[in-house]
């Protein structure tokens, strides 16, 4: 089950969805809005999605997770819109027969989601600034080579990152 929602995520409902008599382990991951990142204070966050592709991408993520891990049931819900400190931005629940698989599956899903699924976070800082988060994007004032010199394109880069795993 995957979902993109602008409402509060029902964590208890998501957890119950994956509980199963064949499962020995359930792992639930929640991403929550953190107040300080590298010393800068966040006041609120806004998540914007390319909704149509994000749903396709989440469905592919679920399908691939089921191929990689012995998953009994899995649910992935991502929030969009404005969030306050402490709010849950993403919730992932997964059940498997044994515990090591549940941790591995949960971690793979969130790590891969953060590379692939077209959703962007804009931070509103307590000093009034706002800033898109887009890891690896050069500042718009940095000069780069001409487009024709740029070798790699999205699909290759996403695939390379996926196989390398992330930090």
């Amino acid at each position, binding site marked *: 089950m995957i979902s993109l929602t602008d409402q509060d995520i029902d964590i208890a409902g998501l957890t119950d969805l994956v509980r199963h008599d064949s499962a020995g382990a359930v792992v639930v991951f929640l991403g929550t809005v953190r107040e300080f990142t590298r010393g800068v204070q966040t006041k609120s966050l806004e998540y914007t999605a390319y909704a149509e*592709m994000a749903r396709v991408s989440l469905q592919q993520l679920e399908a691939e997770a089921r191929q990689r891990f012995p998953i009994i049931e899995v649910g992935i819900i991502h929030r969009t819109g404005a969030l306050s400190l402490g709010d849950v*931005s993403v919730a992932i629940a997964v059940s498997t027969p044994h515990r090591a698989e549940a941790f591995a599956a949960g971690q793979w899903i969130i790590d891969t989601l953060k590379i692939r699924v077209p*959703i962007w976070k804009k931070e509103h800082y307590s000093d009034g600034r706002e800033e*898109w988060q887009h890891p690896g*994007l050069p500042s*718009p004032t*940095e*000069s780069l080579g001409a487009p024709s010199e740029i070798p790699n394109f999205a*699909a290759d880069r996403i695939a390379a990152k996926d196989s390398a795993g992330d930090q």
Partner: protein
Amino acid sequence: MNEIQVTVLFFAAARDATATESTTELLAENTRLADLRTVLFTRWPQLARYGSALLWAVNNQYASSDVCLRAGDVVACFPPVSGG
């Protein structure tokens, strides 16, 4: 030579750079994504500055630069994602 029409969507910082949500482009048949990118980068130098860091998708799937575009394709251009 026939022309095809494709829609291009911009998201997040790419939308800020173009100051538009989408554009409709008339292209020659067999135009590759790389060629469309050149067109867009020429029109929006602010977008060009993001260069190879931008991600590109065609019809909701990440695409590589040599893919041939078809009539009705929906291309999306956006910065590295930051959900989660």
